[in-house]
């Protein structure tokens, strides 16, 4: 269990940055706001409690690596990196504009704090595995974290990497599934069913932890369990809500991607401000 003060700090930070996601989604004309909200608490826990990073030295060799395999959640990642001090948050005013470093999917060559360029689904887990094996090969003690969407698990390369991570016992790799159960066209289970997901990863040689992806006590306990695991890579399947925090977006396929007018923005902000 987290201390009350720490839990409250994480929740306050999450709420404040959910508001930023809404502001950027409003100003940039449209973003993958639903998935940015579902992944958000996982990223907040990592960036504000666990990741060993230095915003003044984004390419520090011994830093922990973070791979947002669901690259379309880039708007949520960008807001957090700005808040951590990797760059001026005012740069996000130009999000999506021609020539801006910031667009739907973040590019490590343009955005400080981003370790790999993602966007094409099914790449993040093998990229993260490469970083994990590269660190071990060179005797470095950093950890690698990877957040995948649930829909992207339909890509075969995820399972190629899942096999390889178990084969090479990549225990310095911790992966998450943002299990919001909705992809662009609708429910994952009616499009191409993923369940029983925990049993699939277990069969592939992973230790699997299933948690509530919006409960900071559960998220932090799972990450610390993953840190203590010595035999297998750990997959944390985080049960999440697409659009979490914005009442009219929650569990709505239509909010996979969207733009906001003034009224929508105000209602979204009001909804987020009512969160714990």
């Amino acid at each position: 269990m987290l201390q009350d003060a720490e839990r409250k700090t994480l929740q306050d930070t999450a709420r404040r940055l959910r508001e930023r996601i809404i502001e950027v989604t409003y100003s940039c004309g449209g973003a993958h706001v639903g998935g940015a909200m579902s992944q958000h608490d996982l990223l907040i826990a990592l960036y504000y409690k666990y990741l060993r990073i230095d915003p003044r030295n984004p390419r520090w060799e011994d830093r922990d690596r973070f791979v947002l395999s669901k690259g379309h959640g880039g708007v949520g990642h960008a807001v957090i990196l700005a808040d951590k001090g990797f760059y001026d948050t005012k740069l996000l005013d130009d999000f999506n504009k021609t020539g801006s470093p910031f667009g739907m999917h973040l590019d490590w060559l343009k955005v400080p704090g981003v370790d790999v360029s993602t966007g094409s689904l099914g790449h993040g887990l093998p990229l993260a595995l490469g970083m994990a094996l590269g660190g071990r090969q060179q005797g470095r003690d950093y950890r690698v974290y990877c957040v995948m969407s649930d829909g992207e698990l339909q890509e075969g390369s995820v399972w190629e990497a899942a096999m390889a991570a178990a084969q090479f016992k990549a225990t310095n790799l911790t992966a998450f599934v943002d299990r919001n159960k909705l992809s662009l066209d609708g429910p994952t289970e009616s499009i191409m069913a993923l369940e029983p997901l925990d049993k699939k990863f277990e069969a592939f040689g992973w230790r699997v932890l299933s948690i509530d992806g919006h409960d900071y006590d559960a998220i932090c306990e799972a990450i610390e369990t993953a840190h203590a695991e010595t035999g297998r890579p750990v997959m944390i399947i985080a049960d999440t809500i697409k659009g979490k925090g914005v009442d009219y977006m929650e569990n709505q396929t239509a909010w996979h991607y969207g733009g906001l007018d003034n009224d929508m923005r105000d209602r979204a902000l009001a909804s987020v401000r009512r969160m714990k």
Partner: protein
Amino acid sequence: MAKAQGLTWTVEDADSMTQAEVYGEVLTQIGQQNPKVVALTADLAKSTKIGRFGEVIPERFYNFGIAEANMIAVASGMAETGLIPVVSTFATFASMRAAEFVRTDLCYQKRNVKIIATHSGTSFGTAGTTHHCTEDLSIMRTFAGMTVIAPADAYETARAVAAAIEIEGPVYIRIGRGFEPPLHKSMDFDFEVGKAIELREGTDVTVIATGVTVVHAVEAADRAREQGVSVRVLDMHTIKPLDVDAVVRAVKDTRRIITVEDHSTIGGLGTAVADAIAASGKGCAFKKLGYQDQFSIVGYPEDLLHLYKLDGDGILEAIGLILKQDFEQDEDWEDEI
């Protein structure tokens, strides 16, 4: 001697070693000298000869099983940490099965990964079309930032592998199955990525060849010379960046150009040379030899090169044809070059 950077190992007897075996030995020696080099394969350690690295340096050797897309992305991640991954599998899988991973994870992300693609063209002839690869030069040269090399023999492969390690960024090296006849007599020749090697001087026709076809181009040129035709032969081992100067000089000096490649005539060496000729603004007679929008059939590699007119006989025939081909003369050439 124009020695490759850092390479002290020398091919002693290329007649008894295949192109792939030579590359396996060279890479192993590079690995012994450079602890950042790691070797990756996809259940083709034996076939590609990268397994030699694994025998000598097992702690830096990774076999990812039959999963090429994963292997390429993992290599990208490893490169992010400062390693220099060298990935080896068959050309058909490296360039097509894993194409989007090569493009997005290696080229777009500017990662320092080397691909050694074996069994290219029809070098694995009896395996049939699934294992032939006549599209990879075309695919790889469209990826921004990719260096593309097709060495002519084992000696050139050794030089290319050593040179690739010195290049910061992704490199695709295309070799055959390994039973190709040697072109050079030793490793001692000038080799520079992006610089064609002029193997024969000539003034009537230039044959620009790459990979396994270079040795056949030399044979055709020597036979043509006996008939009184002066044929220049360029070993265009680097497809990208192309030696545009060598192409334009050939246009100027010989005005008749034939390209030869164990590859489709769409998008590979022939297309790259055609682009350079067109950009020069000068007319010349031009012929592309390769697979003409077709899938190659099953057969022994030497038979297939003959069938598709990519061996000495076929190139000699093309030389005869291009000598009869008309093209528009450009009177202002000397003023502009």
